[in-house]
């Protein structure tokens, strides 16, 4: 390392003439750290030519331009809702949503370097596949002494129930990732193998979009390798793994509280495959089946993103609540192909890295093309001696851990932190449960820190997918960028960032999108295959949104009256308050906690549905939630509250509009709308029963008209007279008023007739029969027969319809 400074006359540092002050964002002062290789500045102290176009582009930007470029990227991520969940250690098990921590400057890598790297990583993936087949097969490597039995016998990641189960698709591993970094000599090293259920491939694609928003793909034009082809080939591979061409392919997710749930939902949408949870599945006659609203449908290929041990409580971890009983049985009976099978995580075991260099010649016939980080398993006497010998360079950690060498999750400690005697004693005592790895130094890459280009340590995550033509390496990935110069600060959970990785070719590379694919391999779910759990969530989302709307209308009417009268003594207020209290709201709070909780439930239901929801719809709901919480802290009763509630009502209308205008009229929309209509009818029945009783305040009738958003219609039709009869006619019995009970029941009847098995052998389904009776009774009712008692009975019958729908379609 020369440590020489970049020449101050480098073209990038010369401010070009212009109206706005332009500068080089600290490029002239950019210095690699002593003894650390850098991506931008070569060992000769000169800038690598690869970076020139990007730096030239930056040099042309003013401060404002750069700020705007960064904002464009961040705006994209925010608008797309790209988040990951961070486990909050201070708040118990809860996790919180975090925006994707984009580090805006991409890492540039030369295509020739990448090609060599790819060949080496493919060899490593092949090695891991062969080792997997041995570990879950004959265990010849242990028998022949190439691998210590201790690495498996006491390893919780070795899934004994999977031993002897051959994968139906012929291979065990189909999707793997490697963490790699550059060592002090500038060569790449593998830092960790990711074979369990590697995350982040979807984030890599979103990172790409965001980064090109900031700096534009035109910088390198056709020389920048695209990512879409990687996903297309893998999607085609997933489809080709089916034994039954009519069967589904799905991603198995742990659910919305997982840290990378967003990505799983995103991948399912992008690839056009289903997203399922363990409870969506069941096993029948040795085959995996998806529970849908139209019964069980075969599901033939699972891309597993759920931790393997949780996949089957019957044969794997019995404490799992996320799994599917019988999943292992289906694998045993070849009723399912899986990416990757449970137990594949055993290959991530840190101590395994001590043996992979020796296993490579045995299993693949050639030495490893790319070294992994130097590792010693301390169960071996000669390894213990080597660790003591070079204690100043060694980091010790649990042998069966799987984290990165610089991860602090496993409490690694420097061998040199113990006096030599204590070290020797501890190594003897803990021997096989410890592993030693050489302390990691990573290359640095330029990152924008407070508007200045600054060297930061980085590692890359590279993805490999099995395709029809063998392993394919994603031409990119994402780079972790340290928050400080300490490699420990790379982890996102510790403030590290993620940057795009650009593989630059000297030639043109072909264009690529996901949409080029052979005909006849549709990945779009069939319309009738809505999973029962998704239908349940949609139905409840509809109910919670409508319940929210009812609450907001009631609250607004209350505060509007306070604003008009100035006091809280109107008799009608007592009746409104009784309705609020019945709905679980505290009338003394302008935006009650109960309202926020209801919105929260709507958000939770929608969170379960991210794979079938438009980004805009989700954003509108999140916005409603945020606004309500903000307003709850600010507004005072009366006019202030009424205005705030009107604003919330408009936001609700915005969400409903997005759903109504944009959601395809398939099964999912039907359940969502059924939920809304049911809730709306129930609300109205309750209001009318409480407020139009002949014994109650006559003002209640006006209140009902206001709640029913029907002031204009009512005035037009009935002039200024308001009486109970016309109001019941308008709000309960009118089939044309979109707020009337009759209108909801008619709509529900239409929808229920379109649900699966609504009519079997001339017999209506139970929900349809109940609704038909309700519809008939409403059609023949008059305002006189529909008194408060009848309205309460109607409300109860609507509840029964909801139960019948749940029972028939959501179980």
């Amino acid at each position, binding site marked *: 390392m020369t440590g020489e400074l970049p020449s101050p006359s480098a073209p990038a540092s010369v401010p070009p003439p212009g109206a706005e002050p332009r500068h080089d964002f600290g490029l002239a002062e950019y210095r690699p750290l002593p003894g650390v290789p850098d991506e931008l500045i070569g060992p000769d102290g000169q800038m690598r030519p690869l970076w020139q176009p990007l730096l030239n582009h930056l040099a042309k930007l003013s401060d404002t331009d750069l700020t705007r470029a960064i904002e464009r990227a961040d705006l994209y991520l925010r608008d797309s809702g790209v988040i990951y969940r961070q486990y909050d250690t201070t708040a118990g098990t809860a996790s919180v949503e975090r925006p994707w921590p984009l580090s805006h400057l991409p890492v540039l890598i030369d295509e020739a370097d990448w090609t060599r790297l790819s060949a080496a990583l493919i060899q490593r993936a092949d090695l891991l596949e062969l080792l997997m087949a041995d570990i879950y097969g004959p265990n010849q490597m242990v028998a022949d002494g190439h691998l210590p*039995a201790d690495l498996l016998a006491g390893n919780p990641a070795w899934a004994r129930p999977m031993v002897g189960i051959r994968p139906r698709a012929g291979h065990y591993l189909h999707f793997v990732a490697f963490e790699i970094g550059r060592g002090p000599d500038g060569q790449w090293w593998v830092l960790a193998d990711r074979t369990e259920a590697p995350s982040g491939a979807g984030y890599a694609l979103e990172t790409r979009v965001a980064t090109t928003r900031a700096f534009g793909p035109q910088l390198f034009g056709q020389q920048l390798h695209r990512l879409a082809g990687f996903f297309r080939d893998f999607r085609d591979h997933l489809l080709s793994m089916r034994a039954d061409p009519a069967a589904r392919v799905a991603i198995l997710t742990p659910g919305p509280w997982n840290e990378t749930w967003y990505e799983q939902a995103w991948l399912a949408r992008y690839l056009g495959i289903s997203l399922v949870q363990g409870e969506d599945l069941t096993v*029948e006659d040795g085959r995996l089946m998806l529970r849908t609203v139209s019964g069980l449908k075969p599901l033939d290929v699972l891309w597993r993103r759920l931790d393997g041990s949780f996949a089957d409580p*019957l044969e794997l971890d019995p404490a799992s609540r996320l799994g599917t009983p*019988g999943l292992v049985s289906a694998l045993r009976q070849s009723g399912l192909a899986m990416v990757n099978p449970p137990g594949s995580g055993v290959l991530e075991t840190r101590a395994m890295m001590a043996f992979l260099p020796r296993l490579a010649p045995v299993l693949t016939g050639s030495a490893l093309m790319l070294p992994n980080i130097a590792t010693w398993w301390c169960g071996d006497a000669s390894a213990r001696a080597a660790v003591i010998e070079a204690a100043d360079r060694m980091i010790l950690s649990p042998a069966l851990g799987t984290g990165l060498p610089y991860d602090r999750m496993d409490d690694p400690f420097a061998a040199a932190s113990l006096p030599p005697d204590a070290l020797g004693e501890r190594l003897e005592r803990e021997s096989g449960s410890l592993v030693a790895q050489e302390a990691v130094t990573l290359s640095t890459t330029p990152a924008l820190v407070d508007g200045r280009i600054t060297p930061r340590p980085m590692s890359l995550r590279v993805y490999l997918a099995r395709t029809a033509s063998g392993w394919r390496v994603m031409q990119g990935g994402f780079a972790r960028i340290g928050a400080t110069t300490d490699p420990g600060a790379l982890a996102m959970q510790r403030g590290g960032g993620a940057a795009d990785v650009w593989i630059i070719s000297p030639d043109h590379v072909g264009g690529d999108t996901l949409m080029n694919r052979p005909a006849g391999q549709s990945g779009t779910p069939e319309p009738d295959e809505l999973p029962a759990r998704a239908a349940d969530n949609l139905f409840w989302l509809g109910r919670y949104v409508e319940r929210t709307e009812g609450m907001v209308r009631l609250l607004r009417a209350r505060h509007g009256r306070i604003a008009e009268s100035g006091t809280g003594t109107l008799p009608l207020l007592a009746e409104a308050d009784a309705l609020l209290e019945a709905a679980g709201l505290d009338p003394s709070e302008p935006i009650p906690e109960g309202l926020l909780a209801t919105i929260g439930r709507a958000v939770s239901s929608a969170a379960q549905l991210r794979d079938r929801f438009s980004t805009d719809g989700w954003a509108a709901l999140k916005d409603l939630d945020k606004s309500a919480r903000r307003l709850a802290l600010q507004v005072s009763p009366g006019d202030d509250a009424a205005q705030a509630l009107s604003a919330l009502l408009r936001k609700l209308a915005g969400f409903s509009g997005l759903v109504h205008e944009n959601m395809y009229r398939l099964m999912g929309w039907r359940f969502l709308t059924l939920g809304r209509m049911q809730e709306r009818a129930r609300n109205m029945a309750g209001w009318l029963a409480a407020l139009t009783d002949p014994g109650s305040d006559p003002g209640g009738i006006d209140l009902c008209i206001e709640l029913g958003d029907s002031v204009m219609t009512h005035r037009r039709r009935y002039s200024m007279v308001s009486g109970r009869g016309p109001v019941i006619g308008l709000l309960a019995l009118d089939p044309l008023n979109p707020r009337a009970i009759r209108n909801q029941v008619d709509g529900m009847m239409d929808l229920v007739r379109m649900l699966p098995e609504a009519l079997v052998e001339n017999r209506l389904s139970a929900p349809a029969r109940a609704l038909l009776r309700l519809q008939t009774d409403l059609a023949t009712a008059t305002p006189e027969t529909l008194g408060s008692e009848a309205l309460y009975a109607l409300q109860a019958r609507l509840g029964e319809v909801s139960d019948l729908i749940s029972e028939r379609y959501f179980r």
Partner: protein
Amino acid sequence: MSIYDLRLQISYEFDRPSGAGRQHFRILPASLPGRQRVLGSLVTLEPEPGELGFFTDFFGTSVVEAAIPAGLTRLDLSLEAQVERLAQPEGLDLSVPVAALGPELAQIRSLGPDSPLHFCLPSRRIPQVDAISGFAAKAQGQDDSVAMVTERLGLMLHGHMTFEAGATDVDTSPAEAFAARHGVCQDFAQIMVGGLRSLGIPAAYVAGYLRTLPPPGQKRLVGADAMHAWVRAWGGPQRGWIDYDPTNACFTGADHIDVGMGRDYADVAPVTGMLRLDGQQEGRHSVDITEAGEG
């Protein structure tokens, strides 16, 4: 040599119709060359399950797998089997000294079902418990063989603990049962497995059946026999596994019928899945073992 007719009945009654579920039953007697031979077996479920199949698990135990349809109010399982049990010759103690186990284990390169390597470390249901380790340490004398230490620990445990049906349940931890000084065969076996492992002796948990002989002069009662559990300690490559029954403080004999072994109860639990052998949906079971022709 004895030939037994074995009958097992498990019955469930549900207050409300049950949901659908998948069940594993580890109830079939094992075939163990030179020791136990299954002459025939028949498993019946009533009402008939949606699916009924068999497979052999990692540790070599035969598992009955059944898909139970929804809507049942009762479920009856019965097993009828004829088993030949060969008595083990009482011979010389060929087990190695406990101190010699380490180097012996270091030589082992098998991860097959009966490899002692699976049974050295604490397991999910049998974690390291200091009180049990301390207790077990008293069973070890210098240069004692595995068989001697096993027998001594078994006798000590039999003295320390009282057999008490119903005092514990399947989820009682070894630490709790040991502190309370009472339990059933599962507790005795799990505590002893933990103690043996703490001494460096590979130890497995064995599930099976026990034939109960009536007191002299009395007629044997139908259903008085039981599902049972004991331990298996590894005595070195020449002696192999040694079976010991801490509940009855004896090496196992012709009255013990093997089902299978595992690291702890969870690996060989007789009923796993939606239904269990106790808990919310109390399952009643009875075991009947008679000499062929006797009963």
